[in-house]
């Protein structure tokens, strides 16, 4: 059997989807998380409950939304609420996974999606927190999805938009964030990373197909920790690719036209 051909986006989506267990809940932002959730629901997690920022709860995700407030986020959903209701559900500890992204990430999983350079006269202005700060504060476990390069994996982010483990062990609790919450995984085009329990620093768990550990190190702008055994992520299966291409994103909005 030959390995199917796939692109980076498809790989990211498949690996992100595999991080979510069945019978749990996930706070879904725009883009790859939407496709990952739709894929997880069709593969191993049919009972995954998805929450969308502006009120959609558990839609069928038959059509891919382009934004977190649009009607496809509550198409045949179980509830159409509002932003306060959804965010307060996370406040009360109901929402397991939260998806995040950004322009920069540091070894403690702190994320920047606000500015490069000085805040008041920035070199580059990004959109800002949106729901990211809330998701990173309130969900139990956050999964960041990032392109892997040294400009993005930096020793210190220019601006902490969203809390990771902040300055290390105990920092979140000291800041007043709910105990037991924090970064869980980072999914990149090169690897799957987690966090060391003792130091709260980012740790390489597995490389993507065809990627070496050295390549991951080379593309990371800070010192990585390594799992005792570094695995290899299985490539997207034919079934995953079929679902992504033919059912989830048939127009190629996110995964590209074929």
């Amino acid at each position, binding site marked *: 059997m030959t390995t199917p051909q796939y692109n980076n986006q498809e790989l990211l989506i498949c690996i992100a989807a595999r991080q979510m267990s069945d019978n749990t809940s996930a706070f879904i932002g725009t883009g790859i998380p939407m496709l990952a959730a739709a894929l997880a629901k069709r593969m191993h997690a049919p009972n995954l409950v998805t929450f969308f920022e502006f009120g959609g709860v558990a839609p069928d995700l038959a059509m891919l939304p382009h934004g977190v407030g649009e009607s496809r*986020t509550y198409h045949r959903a179980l509830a159409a*609420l509002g932003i306060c209701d959804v965010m307060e559900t996370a406040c009360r500890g109901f929402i397991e996974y939260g998806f995040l992204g950004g322009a920069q990430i540091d070894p403690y999983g702190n994320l920047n999606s606000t500015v490069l350079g000085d805040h008041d006269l920035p070199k580059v202005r990004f959109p800002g927190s*949106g*729901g990211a700060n809330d998701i990173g504060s309130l969900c139990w476990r956050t999964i960041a999805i990032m392109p892997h390069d040294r400009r993005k994996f930096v020793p210190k982010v220019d601006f902490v938009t969203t809390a990771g483990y902040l300055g290390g062990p105990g920092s979140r609790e000291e*800041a007043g964030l709910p105990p037991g919450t924090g970064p869980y995984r980072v999914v990149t085009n090169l690897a799957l990373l987690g966090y060391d329990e003792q130091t709260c620093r980012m740790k390489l768990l597995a490389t993507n197909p065809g990627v070496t550990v050295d390549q991951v190190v080379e593309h990371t702008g800070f010192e990585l920790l390594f799992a005792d055994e570094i695995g290899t992520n299985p490539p997207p299966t034919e079934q995953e690719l079929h679902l992504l291409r033919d059912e989830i994103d048939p127009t190629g909005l996110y995964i590209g036209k074929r």
Partner: protein
Amino acid sequence: MGELKSGIKELVLKPDPDGARAWMREHKSMALVDKRMTEAEAVRRFVQEGDYLATELYGSCRAPMSITREIIRQGLRNLNIAGQGVMETELLIAAGCIRNIDLTYQGWEVYGISPVLRRAAEGGKVNISEWSNASLAWRLKAAALGVPFIPVRSMLGTDTFKYSAAKEITCPFTGMKLCALPATMVDVGIIHAHRADKYGNCQIDGISGFAIELARASKKLLVSVEEIIDNEEIRTYPERTVIPWFLVDALVVAPFGSHPGEMNSYYWRDQEHLKEYLDLIKTEQGTQEYLKRTIHDLPDHETYVQTIGKERLAALVEARTMR
């Protein structure tokens, strides 16, 4: 626990619950009066230079685009805004109407970051304070409660907090560290709803976004609707009234009022129009060309809708998300 921190940004709108109470008593009425008026009249009567505005939901979903365009058309300046927006806040920034932004997000989600915000922020043309999505909604909720702040567990420990005007506090009951968010009783709230009776009893289909909170946290509330329904229908389904009449100051009947955004169950987003827009806003010149063509060269929303054309609109209705 260490010292309690404060955000370093100056608060744009200071909480004043007693002032808000007095204002409501003086300016709001329980009388059932016909509040229908045009966008032009609503903006002329209720929006002033220097006002603090908030719009809902956001620029590509159930957004009050026709009223937003009228604010730009009337050339209002020095406005302050709670920025939870995509297109409506972007247009206001592009037109130079905005001085201060309480910002959570200004971008185009899957379609990328906002070149308009980039030019304004990187050129130092607007003053920006950072907040999160939930925080801006909770600030409205605090105003709706008639209290000066609300304690929450977002923003703590981050630069989003540092560049806001929030403050850390200690809970008097548990000793927990919390983030105190100042209440935002906005001067002008602007919401696009599906339908209302002529008195302003409003119904919204689908998610409510933060319409419920904003409607209750607005000194002056402008609502645009896709259609007017009979008061009898309101009375038959009173549980569907999410914004009651006494909160509403101006009611604007604006079919396709969210265009080029979507209006759930009524019409889909105008992808073609947005594609062209996103292309134009890459440059300042293109942005001004768009503002001229879709706002300054047109007298009102009715004409705007005519320029989109019947055929295109019919296709958007056809493409809407069905239940």
